[in-house]
């Protein structure tokens, strides 16, 4: 029964010698004691949990036992080679949820996946992650997941479910009605093969790919212009000028982890670069990308095409191309034109629009500039986002026409996230077979007759090909916690295939992929690929494309929306919640939006001017089109004449966390010929109430003229490499102390954060929550400024509030060597380690909060309530997100103490990681190398903005960064001697006058 999933599938090493009968009984009874109802009902503590692991009992047993009593538990006599209790194993895997792809390492501790890290071997994501990927491990332990197959809500066995499904499939197939397999874009070759088997088996079956966030416009445009229906790869790192029209490529657009990595390279100045890219963003709502742009122009979404058309017309003559008639636009594109032409092949113009005509113009511009083959690659396209809106539209039509006999929803949730959800829901009732194959509970699965719950990706085998030749594998890190089966196995079963999916993948790889490798034998090839998590072939050379056919281009110019005074609504994705698929993840809900800093909500973003005109203020409620009432948040930078509302909220059936949070806004998608446009004109926006509270973690948005985030333009920087940071030298000169500084003879840990690389994506915030067992406190507590994050992204606005400049700064404990907090703790619970770490002894803390008051950075966090159920007093837990359920507690990192009520906590520089690596180095009898230790935030950062290391080692990267003229310390004039340095932000804008 016990299964150990390792990178190598060496089942023969899983030697288990059962103990004697007597022993077994003893063990059993101990276990039973641990898991007896009385203990569970009294809330097994983490200590009990660890005690359990003292028996070296496999996690799967425990996982299962949360739901049912253990029947057999067999102690190790000879433990499996790779498993050392108390030591984590890392398994390479891949994350793909139909929207985001990321190659990852899964940290498994005592049988439980507890943390996701980026896989540095991947050429696509390169070790970066984003918040959603970081948070995905928590979804594994989501108690609202389906726990077994059901028919009409009744629990059945897999055999029964399969029998029923196959039976009905055959009937429908025989009747000639269509069977639709509605999935997200499938990027797994083996899954595709499995689907093919399925389609082959059932003649009327059709596979439709549906992406909740669609890139249909790009697909169609590329098909029209270059006859390639693909989403190209982009190379921001090659771009010297980036002009983006509403594409939030650092946050949510296509492949943000990859793009952030590339983008950060163009912003790096630490390796002696003399140039950074120029980034111009036209957009409606202030996005993460827009807030990082050198120049940002707020526009109405309907203006986008006009501006692009003008831009094309300006550029075209320079390349001898034909111009077309277009309306005038309010924005003068000449400067951009000049810049684009100057950088030509090093330029990149992108648009997030789903309008094929817009994308055609974009393609034409890029083609003229010569970006194809340089910053855009059509030959190694991104494989996800292949869902074509028209297909989906046709599917709905067929559904309405009653042509469809059965639908299998594989990971899709159109009842929630498709604009015409009520039509779908209504017509689904006419189908004979409705199967949901979904990892999480959702609105569509609730509408289905049969539920065949999919395993979580951490419980599944899979393979992916995100770009041609860029393969990666997904392997289970834990046995299925519930009675779930991964979708591919289901498909294979229904197709009549006997093989298990893992064998199916292997066979597929052996046949199709192995031949391309140079490995000596398949076994080695497979093992290596599994170990690395990836197998990558060299990319096909990027080719230059032929020019866009004139007639196609002309047709793109044939329709322009008339500008009107009507307010336009934009539907945007939040960094955290996205399309809403992961909305039930408390970590994501609690992650402050990097732009608004709000949590646990969506709202109308409205420009200050517009709000004034409409007599609205933050916290008012407004009704849109007399249909939907949403709270208002005044958002500087929101284009005047527009409002923006985030998708992904208002979930109806998703589990406790997301239900009732925010409003579902998908009905505001504009449908044009079946294509979803994420904006529309609204007919009315009226105030409908007041007094709503939006929980924001930051209330004040101005730096008040303080040198908190230091900035300069690239011009200034090139003239003077401490531009914007002149004060640093001055302050250092005056650094004097009344007492001698303590010396750190061994290590002296330090960190630097490159503000030029940091985009504010908040992957670090979630990574830190995951690594350090940070409690989720819920909206009410955040409203009371009780949030617990150890690292936060400070965001300030400067300048014109209609279009402010945005600057960001991650702030965590600065580990000051002259720490004001340490001085004042009456019980010495916080003091300085001999390696320069400001450490907290939670056990010692009595919770006076004096340290927090005296911390000028306000990075200390107090456990206001018993958020973790670690308190000695019972029945006082405040846990709105169910984080103290036994199941969710599985995600806790056993290396980090769970803090009790009344205790101060804060960033520890991931001291557990430092200790671990020090120990490893010691065991390996070597010096600790620079870069061995990575803090959780650093590991998660796709931009590599965070560097951690030993300041006593002059060769370490952190030492070098600290010597960089751009380096400064936050509030350094206070002589707190922080161990965290910040590198000034250098923007590529013109110097302000």
């Amino acid at each position: 029964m016990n299964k150990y999933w390792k990178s190598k599938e060496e089942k023969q090493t899983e030697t288990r010698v059962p103990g004697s009968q007597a022993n077994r009984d003893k063990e059993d009874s101990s276990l039973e004691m641990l898991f007896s109802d009385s203990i569970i009902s009294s809330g097994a503590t983490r200590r009990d949990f660890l005690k359990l692991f003292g028996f070296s009992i496999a996690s799967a047993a425990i996982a299962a036992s949360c739901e049912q009593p253990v029947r057999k538990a067999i102690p190790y006599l000879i433990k499996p080679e790779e498993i050392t209790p108390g030591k984590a194993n890392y398994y390479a895997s891949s994350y793909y949820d139909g929207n985001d792809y990321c190659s990852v390492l899964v940290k498994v501790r005592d049988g439980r996946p507890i943390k996701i890290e980026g896989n540095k071997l991947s050429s696509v994501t390169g070790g970066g992650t984003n918040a959603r990927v970081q948070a995905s491990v928590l979804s594994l332990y989501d108690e609202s997941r389906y726990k077994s197959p059901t028919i009409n809500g009744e629990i059945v066995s897999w055999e029964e479910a399969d029998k029923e499904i196959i039976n009905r499939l055959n009937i429908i197939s025989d009747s000639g009605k269509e069977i639709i397999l509605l999935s997200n874009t499938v990027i797994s070759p083996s899954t595709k093969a499995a689907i093919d088997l399925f389609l082959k088996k059932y003649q009327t079956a059709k596979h439709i790919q549906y992406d909740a966030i669609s890139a249909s416009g790009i697909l169609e445009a590329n098909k029209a212009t270059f006859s390639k229906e693909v989403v190209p790869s982009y190379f921001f790192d090659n771009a010297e000028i980036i002009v983006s029209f509403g594409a939030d490529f650092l946050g949510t657009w296509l492949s943000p982890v990859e793009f952030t990595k590339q983008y950060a390279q163009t912003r790096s100045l630490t390796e002696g670069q003399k140039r950074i890219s120029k980034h111009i963003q036209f957009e409606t709502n202030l996005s993460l990308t827009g807030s990082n742009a050198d120049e940002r122009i707020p526009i109405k979404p309907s203006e986008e095409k006009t501006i692009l058309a003008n831009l094309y017309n300006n550029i075209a003559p320079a390349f001898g191309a034909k111009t077309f008639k277009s309306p005038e636009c309010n924005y003068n594109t000449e400067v951009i034109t000049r810049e684009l032409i100057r950088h030509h092949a090093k330029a990149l113009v992108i648009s997030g629009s789903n309008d094929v005509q817009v994308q055609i113009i974009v393609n034409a511009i890029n083609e003229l500039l010569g970006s194809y083959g340089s910053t855009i690659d059509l030959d190694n396209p991104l494989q996800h986002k292949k869902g074509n809106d028209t297909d989906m539209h046709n599917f709905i039509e067929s559904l309405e026409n009653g042509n469809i006999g059965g639908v299998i929803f594989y990971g899709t949730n159109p009842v929630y996230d498709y604009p015409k959800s009520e039509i779908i829901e209504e017509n689904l009732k006419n189908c004979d077979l409705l199967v949901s194959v979904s990892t999480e509970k959702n609105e569509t699965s609730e509408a289905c007759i049969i539920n065949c719950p999919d395993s979580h990706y951490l419980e599944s085998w899979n393979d992916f090909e995100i770009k041609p030749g860029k393969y990666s594998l997904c392997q289970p890190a834990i046995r299925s916690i519930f009675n779930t089966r991964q979708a591919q196995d289901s498909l294979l079963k229904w197709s009549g295939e006997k093989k298990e999916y893992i064998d199916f993948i292997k066979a597929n790889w052996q046949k199709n992929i192995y031949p391309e490798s140079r490995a000596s034998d398949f076994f080695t090839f497979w093992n290596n690929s599994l170990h690395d998590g990836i197998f990558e072939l060299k990319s096909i050379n990027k080719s230059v494309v032929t020019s866009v056919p004139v007639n196609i281009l002309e047709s793109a110019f044939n329709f322009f929306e008339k500008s009107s005074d009507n307010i336009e609504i934009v539907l945007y994705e939040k960094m955290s919640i996205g399309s809403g698929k992961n909305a039930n993840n408390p970590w994501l809900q609690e992650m402050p939006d990097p732009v608004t800093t709000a949590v646990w909500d969506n709202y109308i973003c409205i420009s200050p001017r517009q709000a004034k005109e409409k007599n609205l203020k933050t916290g008012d409620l407004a009704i849109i089109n007399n249909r939907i009432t949403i709270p208002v948040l005044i958002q500087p930078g929101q284009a005047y004449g527009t409002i923006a509302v985030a998708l992904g909220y208002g979930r109806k059936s998703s589990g406790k966390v997301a239900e009732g949070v925010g409003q579902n806004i998908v009905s505001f998608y504009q449908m044009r010929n079946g294509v979803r446009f994420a904006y529309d004109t609204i007919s009315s926006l009226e105030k409908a109430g007041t007094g709503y509270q939006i929980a924001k973690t930051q209330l004040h948005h101005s730096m008040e003229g303080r040198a908190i985030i230091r900035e300069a333009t690239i011009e200034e920087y090139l003239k003077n490499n401490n531009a914007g940071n002149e004060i640093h030298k001055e302050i250092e000169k005056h650094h004097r102390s009344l007492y001698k500084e303590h010396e750190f003879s061994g290590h002296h840990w330090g960190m630097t954060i490159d503000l030029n690389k940091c985009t504010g994506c908040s992957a670090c915030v979630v990574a830190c929550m995951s690594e350090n067992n940070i409690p989720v406190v819920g909206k009410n507590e955040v409203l009371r400024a009780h949030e617990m994050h150890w690292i936060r992204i400070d965001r300030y606005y400067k300048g014109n509030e209609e279009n402010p400049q945005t600057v960001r700064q991650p702030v965590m404990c600065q580990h000051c060597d002259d720490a004001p907090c340490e001085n004042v703790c009456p019980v010495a619970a916080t003091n300085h380690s001999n390696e320069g770490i400001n450490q907290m002894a939670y056990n010692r803390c009595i919770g006076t909060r004096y340290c927090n008051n005296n911390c000028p950075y306000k990075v200390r966090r107090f456990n206001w309530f018993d958020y973790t159920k670690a308190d000695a007093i019972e029945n006082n837990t405040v846990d709105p997100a169910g984080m103290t359920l036994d199941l969710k507690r599985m995600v806790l990192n056993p290396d980090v103490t769970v803090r009790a009520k009344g205790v101060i906590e804060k960033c520890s520089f991931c001291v557990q990681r430092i200790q671990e690596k020090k120990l490893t180095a010691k065991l390996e009898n070597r010096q600790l190398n620079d870069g061995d230790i990575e803090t959780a935030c650093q590991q998660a950062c796709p931009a590599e903005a965070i560097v951690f290391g030993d300041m006593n080692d002059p060769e370490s990267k952190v030492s070098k960064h600290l010597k960089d003229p751009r380096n400064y310390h936050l509030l350094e004039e206070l002589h707190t001697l922080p161990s965290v340095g910040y590198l000034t932000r250098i923007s590529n804008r013109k110097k302000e006058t």
Partner: protein
Amino acid sequence: MYVSPVRELLIKGDKNYKKVTNDITKPIVNKPGKLWFLGVSVTSLAAIIGLFAMFITVRDGIGMWGVNKTVGWGWSITNLVWWIGIGHAGTFISAILLLFRQKWRTSINRSAEAMTIFAVMCAGIFPLIHMGRLPLGYFILPYPSTRQLWVNFNSPLLWDVFAISTYFLVSLLFWYMGLLPDIATLRDNVKNKILKPVYKFLSFGWTGSVRHWSRHESMSLILAGLAAPLVLSVHSIVSFDFATSIIPGWHTTIFPPYFVSGAIFSGFAMVLTLMIVARKTMNLTEYITVGHIESMNKIIITTGSIVGIAYITELFMAWYSGVIYERFTFYNRALGPYAWAYWIMMTCNVISPQLLWIRKLRRSILFTFILSIFINIGMWFERFVIVVTSLHRDYLPSSWQMYKPTLTEIAIFAGSLGIFFTLFLLFIRFFPVIAIAEVKSILKSSGEKQVNITQNLLENE
């Protein structure tokens, strides 16, 4: 000793020693009135509500309060400092005025000391319950623990532990030692069968022997000498809680003397509030005369002006320092979201006491009573302003927050008032409000009818 006829008499009316005893012990010997029972029921109800709110706080966590990530201390520490401040009048009167030979202190010192002790008790509640983990509060004591860890002697909060407990104990000693002769008087005057043995026990066997008196006097004097710097030290150390930090608005060197002055200011205001009521209800107007009230008002105006000058000094220095954070903090105090608190503080503490320059108002009991309540409020707001406005907007604007108290906090504050007044009501019921022996000792020199006798006696020598 010769007393110039220019001086105002301290005890009015036709008095002799017996009458003094009777006047002062009357409330103890007689049955308490309805008013007293009404008072005790109201205050003890408040105390019970407060205790319940404290229980809730300890059980559920500090989250029951409005404090947050930015403003870590709210009403709790405001109340602590306020109560400690009030607790300064008693010892100031007994110790420093004793050293300065201000005879008028004899009529008010006993109750002021009692008030001190009760106020310090109330104050002591707050540092305890503001701890996140009260059950582990004993960590704050330097006892040899199994982890061999001591406390942090660098922490002002630890100094507080020593300062407040020392102050409480020494004040208690001082008060009780002074009370001994009066308890003996009660022992010999009370007829009640239950109370008499209690007083007998409490009187420590005091008989009034001259040897005892002699030692008692020199001990009291040195205790006063010790208590005087102790008074200064306690509020100085409380001020260190703030002044040692690096938060603008907290970190300023003037805090120690300014806090001491403010403490005496608020303490006298509370003494006045209590005494003006007590002298009327307990028929002690001849002992606590308008002259006494005027003397206290003079202390009020002195300390109030010192406090006012300190406010202005801070304000000016914030500007003069040229430090943007300092400047902002004071700008924010005066014009920010908590400006109302600042201006309440300014009005009550700086502006209103200036009216006392007018002799007529200084000697008006009604005005003094109203003013004393104003000052109590003003001094509470002073601490609120210091604690909250400094914290809520400090260095990084990203962390700026507002603070609003919750019902729990309000209940705890009300509870502390309840506890205080309950104890005080019990005190006036069971112990003499005025130091009997001390009043007797000045009766001849400063009493209305005895002046001539004293002169004769001395002149005959």
